[in-house]
């Protein structure tokens, strides 16, 4: 990382630098504005640096796509958003005039679209919480204080495991799963049929969005026509086209990563990211994008309803425990019992780790929501007070 010395010529040719070169060539007559111009350039460049650093930090540190990582991602977003606000409002004089006003309006339109994603993610977190409750039952059933594992406990745990397995299926697979579930239970009363119906309905009730809403479509809308500003755009907007493009890209990436990690309605990861490498934050973001895509293509994750590592862990342990309790004979062999206890222990660790994190994540998503609304309201306000 080059030293944070903006005056120095040792830093690599960043896009920000080339703005300065362009501007110096074209507006050399405005000598008396040099003071404010260069502090403006500093601010813009500082913003680029901040975004680059934050996303660089996300490439290392926490495990990619874990709950702590997602929280960190949202923190990074909030910081970028705040800084962007500062840049925006310190330029309010030119913000209201063309062509910056168009850019700003466009940004606010995109950010409104992100709000629905936040709401869908909130639903997704709630779903994960439901699974967490099933985990509670499983760990309770295999209560370690009980000296032996009895048939009753196994039956109790199995029921929760099956419910969990069904719950965690990608919604496209829901239909086939019910047949499976009932086979493993061989019950035949009327209550069960109603139960099935209720479960089926229950699944669709877990979303508060309308049936036709689609996360992947929403992401496409956010990224629609998003392209790096050309040289003349940058000059025409006093350099502001760059932070606006930056913030748009950050918004798109963060929303995309959320959709990748958390279950939501009609997840799709096809969003294309093409960011010119001249931006200092392009490399870290593109790297993260690539890694997340890689993760999604792995065999065991392809049908996952969310790429969160905790979800993966849950899937793994649930599958293991289900296998262990599949055709179980009583009394239990010692080895079998130990295996089960170990598996439960692992599952319990996952459960413990998730507990507080989910609440934290939900809070952060809400914060992101509020912040986007606030910045949009204030921004539109600013625009409307400076008519063309």
């Amino acid at each position, binding site marked *: 990382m080059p030293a944070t010395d903006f005056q120095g010529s040792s830093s690599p040719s960043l896009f920000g630098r080339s703005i300065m070169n362009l501007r110096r060539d074209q507006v050399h007559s405005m000598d008396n504005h040099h003071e404010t111009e260069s502090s403006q350039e500093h601010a813009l460049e500082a913003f680029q640096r901040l975004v680059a650093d934050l996303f660089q930090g996300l490439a290392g540190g926490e495990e990619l796509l874990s709950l702590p990582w997602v929280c960190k991602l949202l923190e990074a977003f909030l910081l970028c958003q705040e800084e962007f606000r500062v840049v925006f409002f310190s330029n309010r004089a030119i913000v209201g005039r063309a062509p910056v006003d168009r850019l700003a309006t466009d940004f606010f339109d995109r950010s409104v679209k992100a709000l*629905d994603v936040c709401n869908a993610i909130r639903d997704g977190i709630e779903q994960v919480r439901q699974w967490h*409750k099933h985990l509670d039952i499983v760990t309770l059933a295999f209560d370690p204080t009980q000296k032996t594992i*009895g048939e009753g406990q196994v039956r*109790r745990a199995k029921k*929760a495991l099956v419910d969990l397995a069904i719950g965690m299926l990608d919604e496209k697979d829901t239909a086939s799963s019910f047949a499976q579930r009932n086979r493993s239970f061989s019950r035949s009363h009327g209550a069960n049929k109603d139960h099935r119906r209720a479960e089926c309905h229950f699944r669709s009730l877990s979303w508060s969005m309308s049936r036709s809403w689609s996360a992947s479509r929403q992401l496409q809308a956010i990224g629609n026509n998003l392209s790096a500003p050309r040289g003349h755009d940058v000059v025409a907007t006093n350099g502001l086209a760059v932070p606006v493009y930056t913030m748009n890209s950050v918004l798109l990436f963060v929303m995309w990563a959320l959709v990748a990690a958390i279950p939501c309605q009609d997840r799709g990861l096809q969003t294309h990211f093409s960011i010119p490498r001249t931006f200092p934050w392009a490399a870290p973001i593109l790297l993260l994008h690539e890694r997340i895509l890689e993760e999604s293509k792995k065999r065991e994750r392809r049908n996952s309803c969310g790429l969160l590592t905790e979800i993966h862990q849950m899937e793994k342990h649930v599958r293991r425990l289900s296998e262990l309790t599949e055709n179980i004979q*009583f009394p239990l062999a010692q080895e079998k019992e130990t295996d089960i206890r170990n598996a439960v222990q692992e599952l319990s660790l996952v459960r413990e780790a998730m507990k507080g994190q989910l609440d934290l994540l939900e809070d952060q998503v809400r914060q992101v929501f509020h912040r986007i*609304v606030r910045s949009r309201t204030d921004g539109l306000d600013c625009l409307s007070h400076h008519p063309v």
Partner: protein
Amino acid sequence: MASSGSSEAAMPSPATAIADVEAAEQLIHRWDPVASPSHDRMLFDGSDRADAELYLRAIDHLRQSLGPSSPAPASPSRSPSNTIQIAMARLEDEFRNLLLSRSAEPDLESLDLGSLSISSRSSDHDHDHDHDHDQNLSDAEDDPGGGSTRVASRSASSIREIDLVPPDAVQDLRSIAERMVAAGYARECAQAYSSARKSAVDTGLRHLGVERLSIGDVQRLEWEALEAKIRRWIRAARACVRVLFASERRLCDQVFGTPSSADAPFAETVKGAAIQLLSFPEAISIGRRSPEKLFKILDLHDALSDLLPDIAAIFRSGPAESIHTQAADILARLAEAARGTLSEFENAVLREASRIPVPGGTLHPLTRYVMNYISLISDYQPTLNELIVTTPSARFSGEETTDHPEINFPDLDNRTPLASHLVWIIVVLQHNLENKASLYKDAALSHLFLMNNLHYIVNKVKDSPELRGMIGDEYLRRLTGKYRQLATSYQRAAWVKILHCLRDEGIHVSGSFSSGVSKSTLRERFKAFNAAFDEAYRTQAAWFVPDPQLREELRISISERLLPAYRAFLGRFRHHIESGRHPEVYIKYSVEDLEMALMDFFEGCPPSVHGRKRSH
């Protein structure tokens, strides 16, 4: 109340205790569908409760026997804890079955939804808002949610709980829940409960017309469509909160016994629905600020503010509390949206820069729009007084005043912030109208235009007692004086030239004894007068003074100047003309002719070609 039937009073002997336990286990195993699938009727099927009672009692026996010092089971599969699990699985099914089969679908259509509002409200009038908040005010409490701090001395009758499940089924549910919770199966019980009730809640919501709209959907809709949805939402929300959610809470409390054990299943049952309900006002509060939205936003704000105490009561504890917090948040956002919208309106009035002069100098659409708008604002005075807390001078001390240094900001002491805003709006409107008046090439028309519009403003204020109270008589007097002054300016601009034709000087030729009157000058004068008057007639008949009273007053004022002057002129000089050739060329009009002609002035339509009666 279904008692467990366990005889806590008598202490059984060890022998009978063991026998009881074995009997209990046998009973439970008999009802285990895995072991004996032939048994496929439900225990709790509403008819004979004997079996159900026995079953429950069996469970209680077992649990008692599972005290801290319970012996290790002989065979694991027949252990009491194993049997308990079997019983719990059975109970869970029974529980779910009861909920699904015995739920009465609430007849929401027949509910008197109007009565769900506060008693003094009339929820069905056009604005769908209420003026009567003041009647229900008690001491204001601090509302931690911010926004409206009003806490109505609410009559409990605004909440209407209904039976979602018949009482005997509730008893059964309660008995089952008791056992499940006591055996450590609270989670399963809660899950079974919420999964069964969730679909009922969702159905209820749909029947009440609550839609699933994303923020994007709401953004895309036309405002007229949204207005209808807001009206519908307000009605639906009252039923949702005061009937649906309230009843679910009550059912939950009844089934789970204590509020603390009811908290989790309740939250799970209604959280999704509550979020869905609140998502609509949230989306509205996020929308772009646009003046026409103000009043519906206020309606929404008031409705939510009204519901907030009920929401606080129903979602009072546990995970459901976040719903209350969210509702309070949304209320604050709606308040902000209202403020922002008013602000946007003020901007719009300031910036409205149409440069096409209104033909005929009549009322400008802007005037009508603004005055109607602020009349409506005065209707919403109670709410807006609470929401609007900053005066315009505070807000507009920055850019706007430097952009428009010519605006004379009046003294705004002793006014509520809202009233200050209204005065300010009128000031800005006036300023805007003055700019528009300057677009007229004809000075007289310019004055007429301004006079018309100021007069309209004054009348509108006078028409509304609330508005008048806020604007104040002092300011009203100022405006009145202004438009009267404009009437005078108009007259001067339009008629001085004409009256000038009827002046004395220049007609009498000095010196000469005989005639003393220059006939040629006189002839010129008459011709000039006729031409000028014709011109005035032609032009000013097309001008329009919309207010009949003002129109009449203006005509009278003109005629009071014109007619005596003409009469005098005629009287003194007509015989000079009549003694000459072609007098009719010069004396075109009689006084009556002029009087009649004046009646055509300011009618707003160009004069039809008609022969004018002449009399000499």
